[in-house]
């Protein structure tokens, strides 16, 4: 993360999600319910990026993400970066990547799918370019746009 990116509001301790595709930041706020966070959350939308042209960022004060949260972000923030900040220093940097499988992360859009009838965790296999998810049970393939709407 370049210094320029931290101009908005560098956090002291927590997580910075960087190099997010434009449009991902608000979706991440929604799915991680960051609007209800105890500490400050700062979002930057459509900022300049040498790597992506344009990008979004999310700064989350006082929070480390769980494995499940990282997987959910991976669905919409593939190729992004997660920075763990301690005392205003980047302690660790991790690439966010698309999980091969998504368990319990996406609701199947097929109303006749067994996962919408019995209490059962959904399972999807994921492929990229373009992002697609295939239901392990009913085998319905859903598009990127549908996945964004169906993330639990």
């Amino acid at each position, binding site marked *: 993360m370049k210094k320029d990116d931290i101009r908005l509001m560098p956090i002291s301790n927590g997580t910075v999600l960087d190099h997010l595709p434009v449009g991902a930041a608000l979706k991440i706020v929604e799915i991680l319910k960051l609007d209800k966070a105890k500490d400050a959350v700062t979002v930057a939308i459509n900022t300049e990026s040498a790597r992506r042209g344009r990008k979004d960022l999310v700064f989350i004060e006082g929070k480390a993400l769980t494995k499940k949260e990282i997987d959910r972000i991976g669905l919409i923030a593939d190729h992004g970066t997660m920075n763990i900040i301690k005392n205003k220093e980047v302690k660790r940097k991790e690439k966010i990547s698309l999980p091969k499988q998504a368990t319990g992360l996406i609701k199947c859009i097929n109303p*006749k799918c*067994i*996962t919408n009838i*019995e209490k*059962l965790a959904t399972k999807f296999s994921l492929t990229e370019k373009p992002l697609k998810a295939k239901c392990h049970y009913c085998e319905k393939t859903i598009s990127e746009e549908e996945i964004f709407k169906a993330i639990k």
Partner: protein
Amino acid sequence: MSFSLTDIVSISDFSREDIEAVLEKAAEMEKTPLAKKNKILENKTVAVLFFEPSTRTRLSFETSVQNLGGNVIGFADAGVSSTKKGESLSHTIRVVSGYADMIVMRHSIEGAARRAAEVSKKPIINGGDGANQHPTQTLLDLYTIQKQFKKIEGINIGLLGDLKYGRTVHSLMYALANFDKVKVYCIAPDSLKMPKSIIGDTSGKLQVKETSKLQEFLPKLDVLYATRIQKERFVDEFEYEQIKNVFILGKEILKNAKEGFKLMHPLPIVNEIKTELDNTDAALYFEQAKNGIPVREALLSILRDVKK
């Protein structure tokens, strides 16, 4: 012969080796006299659970179990099972897997067979799960082609009718993609064309051509696999009226067809193939339905020894 699966849930689980193992076993079953093969499922019980009605699939499974000397338990209508009382599919399957050595099932819920295979300690055979999969139909279709033409590789096959919603033609596309040099001619009205996603998934393996005119490709075909166009698929009744006759096959198709041309159909036929074709050399659909027996016998026989 190598077979890697413990359950028959979806044709997409099958490798070419798995398909060939089933076809080989089916050919063996067809040659084996009843007196010999009725020991295969001796002292074995097969549960045939049909949560939604079916005629051919259920009867051919039950006949196959009996031919192999097994006992059949089950129901042909969910109304007589505890499903009616509100029992979940997972519970029903767990209970029945304690009674039977194998379970054949049909259910209207999509993904029901995959779920059943997860909770059952005994092999599951999917006899159809809603609009999703019906793998034993696809295997008997492949067996019919193999038996008739002595090969699947290099076959020229036309798929006709409702290619947008038709479960059998979708599964057949994926299954044929395991074989080399297969040419598929997708013949459908514009509103019922083969989904692009399926053509995309099988491209590079199958050579696919699309048209709405049967006559254009008819002379090239070894086999034409016809399916029914359902009136309820059309928003515009006028459009249905316009195209319905184009997709009703009669004796006139034989004029342009090449020698040895065969006509297949998953049945039931409503009006899409005229009865005048039933007794011609081209009609392969009754033979196709009959092939359900050796193919289902083969699957039951292969799965008998599976340990999950």
